[in-house]
């Protein structure tokens, strides 16, 4: 019959494109023996590279712990901030351990675990820029990583200021620090943990922290595909275990510093 090759081709294409639907992501990870974590490596102390260019940091260790709990080997997929969610959606990574703020807009695309860390935001500026507080940002050249929690809040505030300040959205955190240090921008808003680590790294001698940004606490979560309930459920329990076993506190002291790790309870709320 005339149509046979066509039907055969169609059947073959269908075979190619439909993945087996029986196992969910969690099964796939365990079966493959590898956990591919999307990590951001220009965000010390959460993620960076050591002198042999191997990934290190709080997020990297968290990924290692998660892989260990699952009984698999961790593999790191480096993603700049704007690429975290595309990396998950395009199947390059299984989970994101990448300081991802749990915004409602993002939750339309991906699924969040309960928070595994919390940040507050500060103003990072150059020593010669004459910026002492958040209010001084009016009329200045500002920049941040496009699409992040703090970038969206900063851009919203800039709209209400209505002055001549400009905003540049970069594609990587490292580019923001670079541009700030070189003078293409005057200030940025960034999480305090990272701001202090960057100032103390000795890479930049002309940067300083100038006060807090009046933003709500920035809770960050592990991320997985929106429809992978089995995996998201596992991630929730994993975060819970990290905290109750004291590992969360231990990693905080290892990467961030002395003192108590941020409280992850949202006051007056369930999670």
């Amino acid at each position, binding site marked *: 019959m005339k149509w046979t090759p066509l039907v055969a081709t169609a059947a073959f294409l269908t075979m190619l494109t439909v993945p087996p639907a029986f196992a969910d992501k969690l099964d796939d990870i365990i079966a493959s023996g590898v956990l591919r974590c999307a990590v951001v*490596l220009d965000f010390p102390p959460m993620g960076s590279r050591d002198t042999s*260019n191997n990934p290190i940091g709080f997020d990297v260790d968290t990924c290692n712990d998660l892989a260990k709990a699952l009984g698999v080997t961790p593999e790191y997929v*480096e993603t700049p901030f704007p*690429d975290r969610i595309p990396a998950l959606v395009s199947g390059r990574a299984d989970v994101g351990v990448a300081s991802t703020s749990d915004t409602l807009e993002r939750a339309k695309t991906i699924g969040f675990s309960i928070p595994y860390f919390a940040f507050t935001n500060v103003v990072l500026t150059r020593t010669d820029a004459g910026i002492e507080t958040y209010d001084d940002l009016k009329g200045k050249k500002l920049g941040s990583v496009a699409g992040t929690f703090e970038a969206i809040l900063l851009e919203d505030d800039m709209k209400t200021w209505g002055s001549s300040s400009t905003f540049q959205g970069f594609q990587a955190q490292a580019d923001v620090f*670079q541009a700030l240090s070189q003078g293409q921008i005057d200030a940025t808003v960034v999480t305090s943990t990272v701001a202090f680590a960057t100032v103390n790294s000795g890479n930049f001698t002309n940067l300083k922290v100038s006060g807090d940004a009046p933003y709500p606490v920035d809770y960050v979560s592990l991320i997985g595909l929106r429809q992978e309930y089995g995996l998201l459920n596992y991630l929730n329990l994993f975060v819970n275990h990290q905290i109750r076993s004291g590992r969360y506190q231990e990693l905080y002291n290892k990467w961030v510093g002395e003192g108590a790790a941020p409280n992850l309870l949202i006051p007056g709320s369930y999670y």
Partner: protein
Amino acid sequence: MFHTAVSANDLWFLAQGAGWTLLITLIAMVGGTVLGVVFGVTRAVLPGWTTLPLGFLLDIFRSVPLLIQLILANSFIPILGLRATPFAVSCVVLALYTSAYCAEIVRGGVLAVPQTTRRAARSLGLTWWQDMTEIVYPMALRVMLPSWIGLTLGVMKDTALVGWIGVIELLKSSQILITRMQNEPLFILMIAGLIYFLISFPISRLGARLERRFREND
């Protein structure tokens, strides 16, 4: 005294990036040339209107920025329910992209062979296939080769864009080093640029020399 934090380890890291750059270039050129020859010969020998759809399709690859092509492919493959590594996506997109340019080169080369020569060959009893392989191929090759070398260099440089979808090639590996040693972007970029130059320059010289030699013989 010039002081830098770049170590031998880091240079090795860059060299590995350069290795990926070369590998992707190689795969894209092989795939793109095979496809390009098929498309180009088809466009040259069939009557114009029958190959309009193919021409239109290839034109798209030449009129949309490669960066956008990579992003689109990278986001479309999971929509289809397929899985591919960034490396595979890069190779496929670059091969198609290369084929679009290669097709034009091949078409130009085939059409540059005078009709009279080909008719003479056929009237001497050569078959169509013999005419293509014995007459058209050697004559078109001299027209095509310099442009083809130019295309190879172009593709090698265009591989710098695959860093965007997550392949750690030469330029991306230099950016990773800059992230760690943020006070010397210029020096690290210069090293990366020098490596590109060292790969590209000898080939471009070779291309220029071939072009000159072919012209002398005309």
